[in-house]
């Protein structure tokens, strides 16, 4: 499963953190890759409704997540604050993986 994350906006909007990062669950430790797959399923990623930032929100982030699991492909926009705990858990896990990839600590 390949996952690409782009983060837009935010008070700390910084060029290095705004670049899209792609991770491949096949290259992650097995447990981490399996956990990601579970979170994708729990969040019903391929059926979830995209969300837009509140018109009154300022400095909130929008995450664009593209996932290719071999059988399906989808890009989904998720705006903060993320109310769905399952989607929040998925975003947190992807952000953690991409942060590690960006810092070379994966």
């Amino acid at each position, binding site marked *: 499963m390949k996952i690409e994350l782009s983060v*837009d*906006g*935010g*008070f*700390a*909007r*910084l*060029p*290095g*953190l*705004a*670049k899209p990062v792609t991770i491949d669950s096949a290259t992650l430790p097995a447990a981490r890759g399996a956990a990601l797959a579970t979170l994708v399923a729990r969040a019903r990623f391929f059926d979830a409704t995209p969300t837009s930032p*509140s*018109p*009154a*929100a*300022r*400095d*909130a*982030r929008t995450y664009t997540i593209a996932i290719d699991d071999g059988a399906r492909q989808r890009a989904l926009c998720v705006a*903060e*604050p*993320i*109310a769905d*705990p399952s989607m*929040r858990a998925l975003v*947190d896990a992807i952000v*953690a993986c991409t*942060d590690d990839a*960006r*810092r070379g600590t994966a």
Partner: protein
Amino acid sequence: MTDASGRCACCAIVPPKVLRHIARRGTAAQRDAALATLATEATHRLTRATAQSLGSGAARAAYAGASAAPVKSRTIYDVAHRTTLPGKIVRSEGQRATRDAEASEAYDGLGATFDFYWQAYRRNSIDDAGMALHASVHYGRKYDNAFWDGRQMVFGDGDGDLFNRFTSSLDVIAHELTHGVTGDEVNLTYLGESGALNESISDVFGSLVKQWAKRQTAAKADWLIGAELLTSKVQGVALRSLKAPGTAFDDPVLGKDDQPATMAGYVETSADNGGVHTNSGIPNHAFYLAAAAIGGYAWEKAGRVWYETVRDKRLKPAATFAQFADRTIVNADHLFGGTVKTAIAGAWQAVGVAISAP
């Protein structure tokens, strides 16, 4: 003669036009009193209009007490690393501090910002009508951000690797609260130039609150935003610099500060609502140049002109840099006259914003 808040008691019946003349031509004491009264006038106008619309004795009584110093109403919530706002109340107004550093910093930071707006501009909270202040801390896990959701402030803990907790910088707290002020006044559209103005106004008053709290002159201030946020691992001094946009950081992970200081470097992009956190460097730098040229405490003159411009009914939500600049020049002339007006006009010209105000 002054009242308990230091305002000129007789100024309460003096027309604004005359007050503006006093502010320009009077002695130092007369000018201070006239400016304080002009600042309070907006608060009274709102309260007075409300009282008149209600027409009740209770409303008139409320108006009679409106000149007293306002009372803060802060509530801090702990989201406990989840994201469902606002979370559990951990401190309300007047309660003792807890051991939670983020909650304490948020409480104190909201208090400092509230006090700044009242003492510098006689503004009573975000809506100039005593709005309660709400902030949530410990949002998400290792969350590297702070935001205003349209009703309250939200702060993450930072990842501890590149970012410290987002309550650690007073200017960040003031930045987010100022989004509420701007939203209550002109509500600049969060896109392109008007969005960059929206961001810049939050940076300007974020920096001014820090300067005011430290009693720093324009010459002594660091003009940095988020200096306390970055850990020692980051090659940089802050997230942004009003004094020198584009120089705040240059780091292998965070990248290089890409804020332009002048219109020659304006970034055309679809990202970040048209670069609202990037192109804000241009009006940020204009404010710095104006404040540096005027000298003294930046919140007194340059800040006052910017504040009155945010409140200026002739400023529209889709304002461009040039339209905002023109209003600052008109307001500078009304409030302070030639020297300040010239300094502000020079600052806008230096950053390449074409002005048309006479």
